[in-house]
C-alpha cells in the first residue's frame, strides 16, 4: 500500500461526502422549504400544487441523507461516533420529522376526513427537520467537547443562541430555494405568491449571511485568523464578493420575474456559503480539534469503499439528473390524486 494513501484517502472521502451532503442540502432543501411554506399558501389548490411539484422527487432526495450517514460511518467512523451522540436528541427529532413528512406524501391523498392530519404532518415534519439541520450546522461550527476520541459533553450543550439563529437561517435558505423551485414549476396565483415570498426570503437570507459573517469570526479567533490573514484575504475575497453579487442577482431576478435565475442564483448562494464554511473549518471534521485525518477510517477500509464508489456514485448522480430531466415538463401532477 502506498505510503501516501493515509494522507490522500481522507481528502478524497471528505470531498465525496462534502459533495454528497451538498447535493442533499440542495435537493431536500427545496422540498423541505415547500413543507415550511405549506401552511402559508394562499389556498387549498396551491397547497395541492406545491405538494405535487415535489412528490416525484422526495424519495430520491432523501437517499442522499442515507448516503451521508452511511458514508460518514464508513469513511470517518470517529466523527460519526462523536457527532451523533453529541446531537442525540435533535438528530432523532429530525428523523421523526422526516418520517412524518415522508408518509404524509403518501397518505394525504388517500385520506378523506383526516387530510388535515397529514397536512400538519407534512408542514410540521418539514419545518422540524429543516430547523434541526440548521441547528446541526451551527453546532458543527461551534464545535464539540471531545475527550479521548469520544463526546464528553451534555445532552443540551449544542443549544446556544448561535445555534438557534443558524436553525432559522437555514430554514430561510430552504424557503428561498422552495420559492425558486415553485417559480419554475408553477403558474398563476401560486407563482405570483412565490415571487412575493421569495422577495422576503432573499432579504432574510442576506441578513443572516451578514450576521454570520460578523458573528462567526468574532466568536472563533482561529476562523478570523484564517480569513483575515494577509495572504488569504486576497485569495478568499471572491467568496464574499460573489455572494453579495448573487444576493443582488436573486433580488433583481425576482423583481424582473425571471423564471430560472432565482433558483439557479439561490443555488449559487448556497454553494458560496458552503464554500465559506469549508474554508472556515477545513481540515476539521469535528471542530475544534479533530481533523479528517484523525477521524479517518483505516486506509484499507477507505480504499475498499472507493472501489465501489468510483463507478457507483457517478451512476447515481447520472440517474438523478436523468430523473429530473425526464420529468421536467410535467407541470400538472393532478392526475396523481
Amino acid at each position, binding site marked *: 500500500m502506498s505510503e501516501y494513501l493515509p494522507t490522500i484517502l481522507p481528502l478524497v472521502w471528505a470531498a465525496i461526502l462534502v459533495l454528497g451532503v451538498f447535493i442533499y442540502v440542495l435537493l431536500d432543501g427545496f422540498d423541505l422549504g415547500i413543507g415550511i411554506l405549506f401552511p402559508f399558501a394562499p389556498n387549498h389548490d396551491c397547497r395541492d400544487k406545491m405538494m405535487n411539484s415535489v412528490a416525484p422527487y422526495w*424519495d430520491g432526495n432523501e437517499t442522499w441523507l442515507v*448516503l451521508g450517514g452511511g458514508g460518514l460511518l464508513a469513511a470517518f467512523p470517529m466523527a*460519526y*461516533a462523536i457527532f451523533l451522540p453529541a446531537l*442525540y436528541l435533535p438528530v432523532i427529532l429530525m428523523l421523526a420529522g422526516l*418520517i412524518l413528512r415522508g408518509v404524509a406524501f*403518501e397518505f394525504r391523498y388517500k385520506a378523506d376526513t383526516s387530510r388535515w392530519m397529514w397536512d400538519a404532518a407534512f408542514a410540521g415534519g418539514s419545518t422540524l427537520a429543516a430547523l434541526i439541520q440548521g441547528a446541526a450546522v451551527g453546532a458543527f461550527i461551534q464545535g464539540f467537547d471531545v475527550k479521548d476520541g469520544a463526546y464528553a459533553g*451534555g*445532552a443540551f450543550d449544542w443549544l446556544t443562541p448561535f445555534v438557534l439563529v443558524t436553525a432559522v437561517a437555514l430554514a430561510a435558505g430552504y424557503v428561498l430555494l422552495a420559492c425558486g423551485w415553485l417559480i419554475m414549476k408553477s403558474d398563476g396565483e401560486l407563482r405570483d405568491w412565490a415571487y412575493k415570498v421569495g422577495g422576503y426570503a432573499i432579504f432574510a437570507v442576506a441578513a443572516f449571511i451578514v450576521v454570520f459573517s460578523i458573528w462567526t469570526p468574532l466568536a472563533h479567533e482561529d476562523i478570523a485568523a484564517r480569513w483575515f490573514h494577509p495572504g488569504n484575504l486576497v485569495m478568499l475575497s471572491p467568496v464574499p464578493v460573489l455572494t453579495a453579487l448573487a444576493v443582488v442577482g436573486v433580488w433583481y431576478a425576482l423583481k424582473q420575474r425571471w423564471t430560472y435565475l432565482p433558483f439557479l442564483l439561490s443555488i449559487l448562494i448556497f454553494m458560496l456559503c458552503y464554500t465559506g464554511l469549508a474554508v472556515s473549518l477545513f481540515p476539521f471534521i469535528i471542530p475544534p480539534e479533530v481533523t479528517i485525518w484523525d477521524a479517518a477510517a483505516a486506509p484499507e477500509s477507505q480504499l475498499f469503499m472507493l472501489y465501489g464508489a468510483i463507478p457507483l456514485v457517478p451512476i447515481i448522480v447520472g440517474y438523478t439528473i436523468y430523473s429530473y430531466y425526464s420529468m421536467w415538463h410535467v407541470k400538472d401532477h393532478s392526475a396523481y390524486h
Partner: protein
Amino acid sequence: MFDLDPVLLARIQFAFTVSFHILFPSFTIGLSMWLLVLETMWLRTGKAIYLETAKHWSKIFAVSFGMGVVSGIVMSYEFGTNWSVLSHAGGNIIGPLLSYEVLTAFFLEAGFLGIMLFGWNHVPKGVHLTATAAVAFGTLISAFWILSANSWMQTPAGYEVKDGVLHAADWGELIFNPSFPYRFAHMVTAAYLTTAFCVGGIGAWYLLHNRNVPHGKVMLGMALSLFVWLAPTQLLLGDMHGLNTLEHQPAKVAALEAHWETGRNVPLILFAIPDAEEEKNNFEVAIPGLGSLILTHEWDGEVKGLKEWAPEDRPNPMIPFFAFRIMVGCGLIMIALGLVGAVLWLRGKLFTTRWYLRAMVICWPIGFVAVLAGWFVTEVGRQPWVVYNILRTADAISPVPGGSILTTIIIFVVVYGFIFGAGLYYMAKLVRRGPEATPPEPDEDEVDLSRRPLAASGNP
C-alpha cells in the same frame, strides 16, 4: 429520581426500531420475487389473471416498501446515536459493509422501482420485467450486505485489532464469515415464507368470502406450492444454522435450550421458566436424551451448559428460550399447513375446505412472528457481546444520558405507532378492494410520478 440504565434503554430503543424495520424487508424481499415470478408467468402464458394479480400486489408492495425506506433511514443513524463506541471501534469494518448496501442496493431499487410500479403501459414488456427483476435482486443484495455485517458481529473473522480499533485484514473472510452463509439462507428463506403466508392467507380470505375467486386460487395455489417444500427446507437450514451456532456461539445455544449444566445425553426441554438468579429451570417439562440428538446429531453428544460461563459472560436465557420455541412452533405450523394443504390439493379440495382456508387466514402473519422471534433468539442470545468475544454491549454505548434515550423511545413508539396504524389500515383497504379485472390505463402524469414508491397504491 430513579436511575435510568442507558444500556438497557438504548437496547430497548434499538430493538424497537429495528424490529419495526425488519417487518417491511421481510415482506418485500419475498414479495418482489413473487411479483417477478407472476410477471414472467404472464409473459409466458399470456393469461391476464397473472397480470391482474401482479398489479394488485404491487400496490401493497409499494406501501410496504415506502415504510421500509423511512424506517431504514433511522437505522443508518442509530449506530451512531446509540452505539458510538461500536461505530468508532468497528467502523472500519461495519461502515464499508453498510455503505456497499446503500451504493449497490439502494441504487438498484430507487432506479427501477418507478418503472416497476408505474411503467406497465409505458415501457416495453422486457424493460418492465428487467425493472421488476432489478428491484427483486436489489432487495436480495441489500439483505446480503446487512446480514454480512450482522453475521460478522456474531462470528467475527478476517479482522485484526490495532490500538483498540478493529481493522479489516481479509475482506473475503470478513464478508463471508462463518455464520453468514447460514444466516443469509435462513433469513431469505424466512422472508419468502413470510410473503407466502401473507399471499396464501389473503387468497384464502378471498375464497372464503367468495370474492375474486380466480385470483384467490392463484394466490393460495402459488403460496402453497412454495411453502409446502420451503417450510421443511427452512427446518433443515435452521438446523444447520443451529449447528454452526453451537460451534461458534455455544452460550447462545445453551440459553435458547435453557441448559444450565454441561453434559452428554441432555434432555430436550419443552417448557420451563428459566431462573437466571438461581441458575435453574422451574416448571420444567423435558424429553430425556433428545436434546443431545437434536443439537449434536448424536445420542451422547456433549452440550455445554450456561454454567460453563461466568454469569457476566453469558446471556439470560429467558428471552432466547421462549423466542426460540415460538419460532420453531411457527415453523412446525407452517410445515403442517403445507402437508395438509398438499393432501387437500391432491384430492381437489384445497379451495373449498373451509376450515383449512380459515386456518390460512388466521396464519397470515405467522412469518412475521417467526422472523421477529428468530431475531430475538439470535440478538439476545449473543449478549453480553455486541461484537462476539471482542466488544461488550455495555461498553459499546454512546455517552448519552438515560433521560435522552427514554425520551426518544417515547417519540419512536408514538411516531411508529401512528404511521404503522395508518399503513396497515391502508394496506387492508387495498386487500378489501381486491384486484381489478380491467385495470384502467394510467395516463402520462402518473408515469412521471415514478419516483414515489407509495404513490402506486393511490391511483383510483
